[in-house]
């Protein structure tokens, strides 16, 4: 028998968390829908390698599946993987992290970013976020109950963080500083001496530094440095890294966090209740990539560097002024001279010449007047895109 009841109209909105409801929509999302309508557009809008994961890594994963590796792993990640991460980090940065309690394997750097904020922020704690930057930090801070304090980096400083840029944003509630170098979207890097410049301020205000170094292997001129390398700064730095960009493994979802055992322990606590562990097949692939993937990694990096030279000199030639991006795989040309906003430029370029780029303001207010162009795409497409952008500029 059916019981009939009086049911008022369902209002899903009313059931949402206010925090989530009020989270600003991603600027990328809107642009994605726009680009998706256009077929045949050349996309310089992609934030991931265009290489397929090297075969030896895929093959190792297939073999692990054939051998029956389909179970959960330790919450922290497989011991072999944590060992491999420790060795890799030692080799790249010269830093020692104990695989026992200073390394946590996550599902992508994305999860590690979220965990770092949730494990350290109390309601109302402020986090300084230098912009333009990757789009996840601000929403992740808000979701963790923190308060993002965006500060601008300037083209005149090469989009690097300076003491002058962060000092005005520091209050007694400031808990942490986000560093994201090599930077998405600007391609800027911070060298050791750039980091030294802000270290005193960090110590004086007892800040935690959350350092997203997912592009750390991809620097072409100048040397990437980690804040954790500075004398006495290791314990107050959480390094976030992963294999997505360096080893062309975005879809595998493997990242990791390195830091003080108590902080890594707190992050692991959340991770064990929300994620349990990263997928074992991806962990098996990551072990292979870290142990035997250097040659392929360097090959891809070399190809990015060739494209970088081709593309950046091309942009400057056709009248899109662009500072030299030293890392990651993005160029960040200025369009201020055209008088168009970033969004208007990007939308018209897409409609009129079918080239997709990402408006700089998506990465923070200070990105207005710029475009993010990814050169993780084929040389042929880059050359064609430059031709089309030149035509577009000629008709403005």
């Amino acid at each position, binding site marked *: 028998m059916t019981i009939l009841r009086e049911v008022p109209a369902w209002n899903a909105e009313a059931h949402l968390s206010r925090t989530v409801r009020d989270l600003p929509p991603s600027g990328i999302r809107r642009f994605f829908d726009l*680009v998706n309508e256009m077929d045949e557009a050349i996309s310089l809008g992609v934030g*991931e390698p265009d290489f397929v994961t090297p075969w030896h890594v895929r093959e190792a994963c297939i073999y692990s599946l054939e051998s029956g590796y389909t179970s959960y792993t330790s919450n922290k990640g497989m011991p072999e993987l944590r060992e491999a991460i420790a060795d890799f980090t030692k080799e790249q940065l010269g830093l020692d992290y104990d695989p026992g309690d200073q390394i946590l394997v996550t599902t992508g750097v994305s999860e590690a970013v979220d965990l770092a904020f949730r494990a350290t922020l109390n309601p109302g704690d402020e986090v300084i976020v230098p912009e333009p930057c990757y789009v996840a930090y601000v929403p992740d801070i808000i979701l963790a109950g923190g308060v993002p304090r965006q500060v601008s980096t300037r083209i005149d400083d090469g989009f690097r963080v300076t003491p002058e840029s962060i000092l005005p944003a520091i209050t007694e509630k400031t808990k942490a500083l986000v560093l994201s170098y090599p930077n998405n979207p600007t391609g800027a890097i911070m060298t050791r001496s750039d980091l030294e410049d802000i270290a005193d301020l960090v110590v004086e205000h007892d800040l935690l530094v959350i350092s997203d170094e997912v592009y750390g292997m991809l620097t072409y001129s100048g040397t990437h440095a980690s804040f954790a390398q500075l004398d006495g700064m290791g314990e107050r730095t959480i390094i976030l890294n992963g294999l997505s960009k360096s080893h062309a493994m975005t879809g595998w979802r493997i990242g990791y966090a390195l830091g003080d055992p108590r902080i890594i322990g707190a992050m692991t606590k959340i991770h064990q209740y929300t994620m349990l562990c990263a997928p074992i097949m991806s962990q098996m692939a990551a072990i292979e990539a870290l142990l035997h993937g250097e040659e392929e990694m360097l090959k891809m990096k070399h190809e990015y560097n060739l494209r970088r030279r081709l593309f950046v000199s091309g942009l400057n030639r056709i009248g899109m002024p662009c500072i030299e991006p030293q890392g990651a795989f993005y160029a960040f040309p200025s369009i201020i001279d055209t008088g168009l906003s970033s969004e208007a430029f990007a939308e018209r370029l897409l409609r009129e010449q079918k080239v997709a780029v990402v408006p700089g303001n998506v990465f923070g207010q200070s990105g207005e007047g710029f475009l993010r162009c990814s050169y993780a795409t084929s040389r042929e497409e880059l050359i064609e895109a430059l031709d089309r952008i030149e035509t577009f500029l000629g008709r403005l």
Partner: protein
Amino acid sequence: MNEILQILSENARATPAEIAALLGRTEEDVAREIKELEDSGVIRKYITIIDWEKASEGYVYAVIELKVALQRSTGYDSVAERIARFSEVQSVRLISGDHDLSVTVRGKSMRDVAFFVAEKIAPLEGVQSTCTHFILKSYKEHGVILTDKPKPKRLVITA
């Protein structure tokens, strides 16, 4: 590795201007270095990798393994160099293992290749035995996978 050689080894048609843009050098500078590489014989020839099966004017290829009696004064060189002069022969290599020389031969038909081996290679002085392996299908040539499927597409815009 020499960066110009690396680029040309992947695309023999890359122009000095294109190479210059990739390396951040001037076109003249790159052109001069290519000329030097050609003159000194480091760059031997620019060729095209063709999927002959697709091109439908199919050729037949065979790998011939040869056992060779060593010549006192010239070692393997004199036999190998004689074999290399035939236009049917694509490559001649001295190899380790059961055999001495590995030779690839191209012909219009299996008959063609078989007769070539029987009439021109086997009777050569110093050649003790031949073993002909016809190539039935090629999966990868000169580092290019011939059977590759198209790459899956990425999302058009990602953060």
